[in-house]
């Protein structure tokens, strides 16, 4: 997967830009606050439509402009397509080869990106929602149809919570209706997560060993209070059904859905000890790096070409040897296109297949 051309107009602090990226490494360097991350965000938006940073549409549109436009010419294993995103204050519109995309379901998967930025280091330290987001996004990247399942689940969950909240006396038939829907979509989400982890974890482990050394065994586990040993979708559904039954009393008093995939987590261990509780700063960073690299390998296996890698603010978060490993990996183990931002060119351990741009006050200058 390759971005051959990227056009940006009235996006954040960038008035107008057109770049023709190298098929391997693209480095955007400059001082902080000049708009480096905005370029990565533009690429990310063209893939996911939603940003990786919290924002409203108005934040994305350059001050005093009516709308923002992003456009990429993408080579996807030989077939070429033009992806365009228009951002208005009231909404976004996606175009594929100049045809307006009516259903985003048909669009997702057009561009696959994996993002690694400074915030990701907190992935394993913060609350479970970031880890659920990681796994769901990784699955969605590989199987865009997953977006539909999780949307349906979210909708059923909202309806079910509204029912629990509003009604003093709940219609038992109506509750059982929502239970059935909840179990149907919920079990599919968990089944897909488990299936993903089955291939993801071994890759993660071997990557982590490469980054540190073989004396460290990394492990990741799906963590859920209700799942037990269930593996098949049918078993998962049965467990989830029983978990709902067992939480009737708690639900009555708290008035929302207390079990399900929206409350589950990923737990991480190093040599059998909880990383969250005992891991050092460096181990945390190495672990997250291994997760991202494993995600790239996973996508490569799925699509037979590498996703686009976005590396935000390289080196401020990794120590020297970890940094070296990262560049070794993207140089030798990965054949895809990479977009990197950095404040110092010395952090970039690359010497060929490389194009530099300098970013200064929203201006992008080849360099």
């Amino acid at each position, binding site marked *: 997967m390759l971005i051959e051309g990227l056009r940006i107009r009235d996006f954040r602090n960038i008035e107008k830009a057109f770049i023709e990226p190298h098929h391997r490494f693209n480095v955007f360097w400059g001082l902080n606050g000049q708009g480096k991350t905005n370029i990565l965000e533009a690429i990310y938006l063209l893939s996911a439509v939603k940003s990786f940073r919290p924002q409203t549409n108005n934040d994305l549109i350059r001050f005093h402009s009516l709308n923002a436009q992003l456009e990429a010419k993408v080579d996807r294993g030989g077939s070429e397509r033009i992806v365009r995103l228009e951002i208005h204050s009231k909404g976004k519109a996606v175009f594929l080869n100049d045809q307006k995309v009516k*259903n985003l*379901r048909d669009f997702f998967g057009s561009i696959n990106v994996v993002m690694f930025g400074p915030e990701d280091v907190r992935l394993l330290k913060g609350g479970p929602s970031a880890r659920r987001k990681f796994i769901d996004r990784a699955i969605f990247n590989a199987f865009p149809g997953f977006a*539909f399942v999780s949307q349906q689940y979210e909708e059923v969950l909202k*309806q*079910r919570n*509204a029912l629990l909240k509003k009604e003093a006396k709940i219609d038992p*038939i*109506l509750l059982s*209706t929502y239970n059935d829907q909840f179990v149907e979509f919920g079990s599919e989400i968990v089944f897909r997560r488990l299936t993903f982890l089955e291939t993801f974890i071994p890759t993660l482990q071997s990557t982590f060993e490469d980054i540190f050394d073989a004396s460290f065994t990394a492990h990741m586990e799906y963590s859920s209070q209700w799942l037990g040993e269930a593996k098949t979708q049918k078993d998962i559904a049965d467990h989830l059904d029983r978990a709902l039954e067992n939480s009737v009393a708690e639900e009555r008093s708290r008035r929302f859905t207390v079990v399900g995939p929206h409350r589950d987590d990923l737990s991480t261990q190093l040599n059998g000890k909880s990383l969250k509780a005992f891991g050092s700063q460096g181990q945390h960073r190495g672990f997250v790096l291994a997760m991202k690299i494993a995600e790239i390998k996973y996508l490569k296996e799925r699509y037979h070409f590498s996703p686009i890698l976005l590396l935000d603010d390289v080196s401020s978060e990794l120590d020297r040897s970890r940094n070296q490993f990262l560049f070794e990996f993207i140089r030798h183990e990965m054949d895809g296109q990479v977009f990197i931002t950095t404040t110092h060119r010395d952090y970039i351990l690359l010497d060929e297949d490389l194009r530099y741009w300098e970013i200064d006050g929203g201006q992008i200058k080849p360099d």
Partner: protein
Amino acid sequence: MQTRDPITNLINALTKLPGIGERTASRLAFFILNQPDELAENLASALIEVKQQVGYCTQCCNLTKDERCMICQAPKRNQNMICIVESTPDLRAIERTGEFHGTYHVLHGLISPLEGVGPDDLRIRELITRLGQSKIEELIVATSPSVNGEATALYLQKLVKPFEIKITRIASGIPIGGDLEYIDRVTLSRALSQRRELN
């Protein structure tokens, strides 16, 4: 909001209609104003008539000006077969196919606790009364395949279970004349899982 300017009042009233914004409303208002009086009089009386005369059919809750709607009154319709729809426009869509010869039941909405719509806000009680009164052979649930449409269908299925009546759900899948390549994955996988035998 009632003001003292009749033109503003009309514009405000028109903006309450779905799909009509301030600009369209003002265009419509000035159009009406510039036409002969007849147009305004006809429009006004048609609006009042429709509200005064149209009500629910006592059997199927379809909109009608009579006690029972045309379909329920038609002698040739199979009274033992009921197709359950969300709204009158949906009923009309099925009528246009000319394929269905039973009667309908119009719910006037779908269950959605989020929007405060429960079973009691729909015409479900009327349906149950109907089931108790006559010998129904089949119920066809023809709500949309959306989350709310599916929830409503599932709810009805559970609700009528004690009656031991055959209940079916309309199929969903690939549109006729559709090209497989361009069908979204969800529809396609649904169509696959609900495939039928050819022999």
